[in-house]
């Protein structure tokens, strides 16, 4: 399964594909972040039940220093 994450293509096994698994696979578990799937925000409470499909576009963002 091909996903585009933060503008870059990435391949994943289709077997375990919800947003919670993706976060785990990307080593982002426990980090404070927000996720957009195809332009729609996925609330943290829905990570487990939000399934991913081939071609999905994701944005994963966090807070950084800024003025």
């Amino acid at each position, binding site marked *: 399964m091909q996903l585009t994450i933060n503008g870059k293509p990435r391949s994943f096994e289709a077997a375990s594909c919800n947003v919670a698994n993706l976060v785990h696979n990307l080593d982002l578990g426990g980090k404070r972040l*927000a996720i957009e799937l195809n332009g729609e*925000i996925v609330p943290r409470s829905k990570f487990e039940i939000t399934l991913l499909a081939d071609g999905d576009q994701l944005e*994963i*963002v*966090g*807070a*950084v*220093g800024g*003025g």
Partner: protein
Amino acid sequence: MSDLLKIADKTYRSRLLVGTGKYADFAQTRAAIDASGAEIVTVAIRRTNIGQTAGEPSLLDFLPPEQFTYLPNTAGCYSADDAVRTLRLARELLDGHRLVKLEVLGDPNTLYPNMIETIAAAKILVKDGFDVMVYCSDDPIIAKQLEDIGCCAVMPLASLIGSGMGILNPWNLQIIIENAKIPVLVDAGVGTASDAAIAMELGCQGVLMNTAIAAARNPVLMAGAMKKAVEAGRDAYLAGRMPKKLYSASPSSPTSGLIA
């Protein structure tokens, strides 16, 4: 005496708001913010660096949410759509947090705000329940329009972002302050402590800065200087300055009892 800054129904003791960018490291960021006494700190929203950040500390680890009020910004956004999208992500990131700093830029060289896009974004965000502190040009008509839209604070520039040029148009700021029923804060352009004091003496409710502290040779020392300048400027404003006169025939020392 309690002289508190009130923004969107919440009160703050400090009238100095600070950014968290451009510091050498997170420890210096935290030390400077502690020295500044700021309670509200701006943060930017950016793509997470996947694969390289596992286990690395993050900014928020150094600025615990119990101790600071975050002000997520839209720095780097050049359209209303991008700004709105960024702040919706920020709201999700920060568990429903409503207080935000809206800025929509118009030009990468000057970082001057695009007020047409800013106004469009402000309308959407206010309707969506955000408490919008808005970075704007120092145009009194624009500032009033942003207030009418429902923004909770207007933040005109003193001079261009990161320029350190100080307050270039105190007259416009004064008109904005006179007309506003919401807090007016100077955002951008402050270079050194006297600039912050002047902003406060004009009657600003607060000052927001980043580069003036982070780009100082000693950021922590400058943060403390800014704290004092904002407090001194505020007190001077409340105290009411003496009128300016070209000269005075009324000396401060007694005119009688001179030895000759």
